[in-house]
């Protein structure tokens, strides 16, 4: 079982690395889009998948990251990719401030508040809050990113940049998942009172999950801004948040591979329906219902964690 899984992963990596050889620009762009959403999905997965919090306002953090990058790079000429940590930080601080008073809300109450959050942010962006967001026009003329002196503007260059970021995200988040922090979030999701009774500071961990998820979403905002070179409020609607949410749940909440698969399904699949024109979204909606019915836990639900405990047993016997 385990070996087979790694073969699939390896094939996937090979496919991505060689994609520019046989895919045209359009499909590369689809892959880029999927990659961006995969990172967003992974960042939301920390909050929804591990922490089990109903959060449908993730686009707010993404927007704040993207706008931070856009505003600073266009007004001060700072190279775009350098702004990634700053954008993450802005989004993270924003999450810290807004999530603190609402973090104790349960289930659906948290859901509507996060929806409210993303709507407030979008309305603020449209209304050109503080006179820096450009209103409905958005912000344009964001410079292209450069990496090691190379200007990145072609689709395949973005492919490597974006999926490189996906790889880094997977690397870090896999470690996170298998750590004290990641486990604490899962305990929270499973049973908040038992988690607290085991010494987990629930409020702090929920908040930390929000801030970390927001930080990552903010960094994706930088990538998005750099790739589009223009950003406007349309890109950060409530519907966007719904998409990330679907990616996580559909793919398999709490499972990294599942979330990436979810990004392929939610973002990639509609592209295959392009030929159907007006029927495109209808088919997409129906596909979602059926996928949920046939795999109610998501396509790839989280697997049980395996720990190497053999060394604590002597000859099959516990020490």
């Amino acid at each position, binding site marked *: 079982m385990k070996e087979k899984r790694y073969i699939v992963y390896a094939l996937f990596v090979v496919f991505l690395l060689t994609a520019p050889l046989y895919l045209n620009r359009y499909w590369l762009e689809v892959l880029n889009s999927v990659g961006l959403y995969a990172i967003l999905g992974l960042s939301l997965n920390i909050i929804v998948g591990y922490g089990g919090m109903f959060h449908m306002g993730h686009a707010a953090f993404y927007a704040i990251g993207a706008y931070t990058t856009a505003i600073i790079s266009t007004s001060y000429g700072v190279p775009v990719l350098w702004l990634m940590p700053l954008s993450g930080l802005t989004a993270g601080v924003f999450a810290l401030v807004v999530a603190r008073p609402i973090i104790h809300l349960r289930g659906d109450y948290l859901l509507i508040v996060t929806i409210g959050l993303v709507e407030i942010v979008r309305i603020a962006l449209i209304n050109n809050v503080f006179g820096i967001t450009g209103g409905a026009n958005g912000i344009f003329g964001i410079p292209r990113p450069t990496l090691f002196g190379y200007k990145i503007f072609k689709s395949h260059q973005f492919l490597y940049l974006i999926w490189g970021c996906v790889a880094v995200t997977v690397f870090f988040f896999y470690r996170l998942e298998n750590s004290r922090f990641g486990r604490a979030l899962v305990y929270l999701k499973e*049973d908040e*009172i038992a988690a*607290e009774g085991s010494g987990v500071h629930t409020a702090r961990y929920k908040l930390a999950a929000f801030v970390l998820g927001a930080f990552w979403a903010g960094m994706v905002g930088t990538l998005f801004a750099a790739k589009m070179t223009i950003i406007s409020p349309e890109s950060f609607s409530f519907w966007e948040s719904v998409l990330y949410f679907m990616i996580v749940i559909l793919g398999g909440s709490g499972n990294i591979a599942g979330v990436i698969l979810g990004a392929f399904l939610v973002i990639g699949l509609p592209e295959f329906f392009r030929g159907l024109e007006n029927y495109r979204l209808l088919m997409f909606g129906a596909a979602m219902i059926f996928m949920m019915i046939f795999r109610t836990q998501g396509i790839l639900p989280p697997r049980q*964690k395996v720990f190497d405990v053999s060394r604590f047993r002597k000859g099959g016997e516990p*020490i």
Partner: protein
Amino acid sequence: MILKLSNLTKRFGGLTAVDRVSFDVEEQTVMGLIGPNGAGKTTIFNLITGNYKPDEGEIVFQGQSIGGVWTNKIVMLGIARTFQTIRLFQNLSALENVLAGCHCRMKSGPIGAMLKTPGQKQEELWALEHAMKQLQFVGLADRAELLSGNLSYGNQRLLEIARALATNPRLLILDEPAGGMNEQETEALIELIFKMRDSGLTVLLIEHDMGLVMKACNRLVVVEYGKKIAEGTPEEIQADSRVIEAYLGIDEEE
């Protein structure tokens, strides 16, 4: 004296669930809290563990007042508990459940985890070993990889104890630990309780199985309608007329 309750009171709306209850728990003893259903026993536990905040009175643990302190802080100070209705993480393995208990004795945060610092790595190894020790202590080491939801009822109770033990407590609070256990399992549980006491732990438990209570406990506190009505050694309690009337006597009359 490890734990001292004085005049502890908790009200829910008009109902006084716990009414000026005071008692002390001596170090390295097994203390039993008994009384009819709805007498407020579990509420007293919830007050001690910080799940509820007391309306009046004081809880002093190792010389420190802990009334109204957050649960996780109390766990850090050295009080661990199990639940009357088993609250395991059903979808996680037995080992992962016990790892939850190790949480409060670890330090590394998300950044340490992502960077896998040497300290974090060592800590994780320690946690695994520590968790396995607890599993072994309660006799579940060979079931470490099983989903906790698939364990038998008695084993789930034991697993909860292992999870609580993993927090390195000074005081262990067990809420009906023998609930759903058969006779043999109960016997084994009594042995386990003695083993814990002998290793330096103090145990405070609620139990309806009088056999276990009389055998395992050094002292008993009896509550009824939120009030303490008696306290003493098992022998004294068995002889107490009020207790017989209120609680034990029911059987004799029928």
